């Protein structure tokens, strides 16, 4: 009986499957044709772009776009192209606060999870409260505060970008706490203490490794956020080209190139090579990205 049902199902044209694949392929095209357009444009010479109507694949492949962004960069500092400076600045301006903040957040989450102290609940509620306030609205008003304490201008513009981010983030604390609550049992702690571990060792060598997947997820998303950050750098670092991050360098470079409609190849090249590092990072670590959303997303 079962065999007959199965055979019947196989004979039928799998409409649902075909529709599913059609939708998936169509959506893939929607997402990747724009990439294809800018990749192809980036490999077309400026002359060809100006002389002919739009055509996707260049008649003659040319590396001119990539040459232009490194040689004709009006924002270069001492001959070093701004995109390159921007990339290195992005790295350290993102990694330093991300790592410090993650460590602080993990420590705070550990304390909330494994210690009983008076006022613990009130502190934690305050933490949750700060997490919920929509302070994004005050993003640009913060400038007023930092101007008045002298944290704006030249290299001091780095202070508002880095210092406030060093003290942990409420969302990460909330997220990691649930991890310590469920993943680090008191038996494990007791066993470690019997082995003579003190609390600092306990935190560094037992608690932290246990929540590694959660920390890695937080790190990846914080890193992506930092790499793509733009508005704060625009506000605080605009006057010092040697401190620009990648997004600021990219927007300024393409903004200058776009005056007069030319150099579309250079704009596409700049935009594409700025996206490339994160795309590569994502593809090589996609398992952790997807896992990261699955374990933490619904909780934030």
């Amino acid at each position, binding site marked *: 009986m079962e065999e007959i049902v199965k055979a019947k199902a196989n004979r039928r044209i799998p409409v649902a499957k075909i529709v599913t694949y059609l939708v998936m392929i169509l959506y893939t095209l929607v997402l990747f044709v724009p990439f294809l357009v800018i990749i192809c444009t980036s490999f077309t010479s400026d002359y060809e772009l100006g002389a002919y109507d739009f055509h996707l694949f260049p008649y003659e492949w040319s590396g001119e776009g990539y040459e232009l962004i490194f040689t004709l960069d009006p924002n270069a500092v001492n001959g070093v192209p701004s995109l390159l400076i921007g990339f290195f600045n992005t790295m350290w301006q993102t990694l330093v606060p991300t790592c410090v903040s993650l460590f602080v957040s993990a420590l705070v989450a550990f304390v909330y999870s494994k210690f009983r102290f008076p006022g613990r609940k009130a502190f934690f509620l305050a933490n949750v409260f700060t997490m919920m306030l929509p302070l994004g609205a005050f993003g640009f008003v913060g400038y007023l505060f930092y101007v008045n304490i002298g944290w704006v201008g030249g290299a001091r513009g780095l202070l508002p970008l880095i210092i406030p981010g060093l*003290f942990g983030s409420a969302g990460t604390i909330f997220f990691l706490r649930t991890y310590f609550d469920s993943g680090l049992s008191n038996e494990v702690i007791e066993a470690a203490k019997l082995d003579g571990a003190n609390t600092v060792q306990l935190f560094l060598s037992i608690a932290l490794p246990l929540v590694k997947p959660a920390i890695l997820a937080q790190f990846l998303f914080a890193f*992506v956020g930092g790499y793509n950050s733009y508005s704060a750098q625009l506000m605080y670092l605009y006057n010092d080209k040697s401190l620009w991050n990648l997004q600021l360098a990219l927007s300024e470079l393409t903004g200058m190139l776009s005056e007069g409609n030319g150099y579309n190849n250079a704009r596409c090249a700049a935009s594409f090579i700025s996206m490339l590092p994160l795309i590569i990072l994502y593809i090589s670590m996609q398992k952790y990205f997807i896992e990261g959303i699955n374990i933490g997303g619904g909780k934030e």
Partner: protein
Amino acid sequence: MELAKTAAVPEEGKAVSGRSPLPKNKIFTKQNVICWIIVSVPLLAFLVFNGFTIIFSILSMFGDMEANRLDTLKWNNFANFLRIGEDIGTIWQSIKVTLVLTLAQFTSLMIAIIIAAFLSQDVKGTRFFQTLYFIPYVCSSVAVSIMWMVIFGWNGGLNSLLGTDIDWLNNMENPSTLTWAIFISVIWQAPGYGIVMYCSAFKSINPALYEAAELDGANAFQKFWYITLPGISTITFFLVLAGITAGLTTFDAARIMAPLSWDGYAGPENAGLALMYYIYIEGVQFGNMGYASILSWILFIVMMIPSVYLIRKRILSLEDL
């Protein structure tokens, strides 16, 4: 290092009951003090960096300053507030743009549900497509906006695809094409996160429910409506709130795709003037921080409405912690 000597990790029974093992009159033990210090760090930082920002912004609303210095603040008879009346046309325009960009977040959510529903079908390769669909999400909105500017721009491909000859980003006859170009760049980029979340939400719904519904003769739509939708309500709730926040504070795409013209317009007839962009122009570029503060507070109050709802829900669910 003091922590190491004195810290007492609660034993299981005590951890559950939450009672302190110490006598009541000894609150200021070393362990408690160290705990307080550690958990205060993020809260104090929050108070200092955001508290002062909020106080300064309130002060600045009531006066004029030179070069944004509060010590030069001079009372100006509510001039900043009166300016709202004169400026209502621009504010209204920026609200309209902001609403379109918030709509883009809702549209992204719809796209995410639909795509995730297809990805949850029992066919091969869904994992691969899910991985692909997340790629735009890790791209910066700056680079994505530049990409769309090229495509929407002169000889960029869209016109030859549609057979039109429109300057989408600088359309004097119909300026709103710029607003919708920004809309497109947002919905191209934003659904990735929702897709991944919905995929896992769909997977977590008990398949027995579908089987039972099938036995009762439910069709595909009924199954989606009565089983799938309730099953993803928590995640939808979170994504709606995140979407509202992201939509109302859209800045990067607006600033890139609608660069400020020499006469102070963000695109033709301010078609790219999202509210955050307006706040940036007024506060940071023109130095009218008092006025920018008022606009920020309006935005903050609007954003508080969903947040208050979230805070109530979250704090109620925390009773057991």
